């Protein structure tokens, strides 16, 4: 892992850092953010596309090295393969974390994807729709079909309880400030306080307060 100074340096944008290194950092950050945020984050489509392209190139390169069967290349081969496996792991874990959230809050995600379609990739929204269709038809064949008409809905909000589960936006997250991100108001026991977010600071704050900063890239979760 790069240490904090490297990460901070990369954010201020040194021109000497190659795109591939930046992508790895961005992927790692997207992965950590996705795994720690309580809510589904926007889908990093371009980043994933670039990474997938590199993975494909790397697989080809490994096949080439295998084909030549040069014993001196074996050591290099192991390193390249290890790197490849790690990249694959990052992408896999990122996608699985997203699927887990989509499955946990299907109706909420569905409603959200109507207002901001960029949050889901095309494949994910296909999956979500199909999965919801499967679930609701399962409920219907299992018991809902014999219910009275008024009680058959799956997204009822009547009776004081909403059937739609939502992620807890007030949960606390650990975050590191990458760029000065202004102030956030926090609700404490002694009333409202203001926190000044300076670069390099580490805070435990409510997700609701830092969400915008994370989406802008000013704050990362840890």
């Amino acid at each position, binding site marked *: 892992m790069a240490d904090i100074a490297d990460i901070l340096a990369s954010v201020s944008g040194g021109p000497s850092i190659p795109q591939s290194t930046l992508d790895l950092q961005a992927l790692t950050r997207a992965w950590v953010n996705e795994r720690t945020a309580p809510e589904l984050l926007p889908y990093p489509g371009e980043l994933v596309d670039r990474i997938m392209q590199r993975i494909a190139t790397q697989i080809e390169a490994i096949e080439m090295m295998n084909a030549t069967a040069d014993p001196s290349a074996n050591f290099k081969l192991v390193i390249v393969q290890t790197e490849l*496996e790690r990249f694959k792991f990052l992408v896999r874990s990122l996608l699985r974390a997203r699927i887990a959230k989509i499955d946990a809050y299907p109706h909420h995600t569905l409603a959200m994807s109507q207002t901001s379609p960029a949050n889901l990739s095309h494949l994910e929204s296909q999956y979500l729709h199909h999965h919801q269709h499967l679930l609701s038809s399962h409920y219907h064949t*299992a018991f809902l079909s014999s219910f009275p008409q008024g*009680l058959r809905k799956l997204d009822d909000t009547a009776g004081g309880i909403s059937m739609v589960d939502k992620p807890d936006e007030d949960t606390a997250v650990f975050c590191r400030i990458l760029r000065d991100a202004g102030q956030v108001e926090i609700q404490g026991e002694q009333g409202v306080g203001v926190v000044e977010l300076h670069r390099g600071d580490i805070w435990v704050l409510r997700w609701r307060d830092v969400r915008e900063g994370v989406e802008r890239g000013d704050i990362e979760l840890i």
Partner: protein
Amino acid sequence: MYGEQANKLVTDAKRIQHLPHLPPYASATTQAVTKEVRDLDRENNEILSQYSTSNASQPDPSSSSGTPLKSSFNPASDPATACALMVNHLAMRRNKRCLLAYHRTRTSKLERMIWAGADPFASPSPSSSGSSSLSAEEEQFAHQYGELLAQYKGQWTDVDLTGSLEPPRDVFVDVRVLRDAGEVQTEYGSLNLTKNSQFFVRRGDVEGLIAQGYVQILR
């Protein structure tokens, strides 16, 4: 009455969360709860229909036919009946939530099994062989979900979505074979996996065998 049966489903669902396998589907309880909901609904309609018939002189035609909820019932004038209606209504909602929770717990368990590559149709104990612990609807759901997953996974062949979620350390690992698995094809030729033999293989190639318990990683 009033959610007693449904409570069984909830405790069952809680139990399922910590079980390695799925216990048999509680079709009798499900039916009893569904019946309770229908009974409660009928009771409510009967109570309300008294009001709409006693006020049959009312000129509004929509209130008397088919839509008992629009009857002239005034909760303030008869709090006892209003309370009965409310309790019935809440009991129905509660039953519905319990049923949904029970079914969702079971389906998510099935989904997890399918993600992990385990066979959800396998019977938990050999003694109960023959009858699956899944209901017919659940079997259908599991099949369809398997197809859905395969479809989604198929778009990400390079990263193998169902692969291990442990961060990889080594490309190659030492494995010991626990059960005869026969010939296995890998990128580097075939392996003949006989019990108690050891191999130094690529982790990705034996991932499935580890999950199924054929081989074990040595550290």
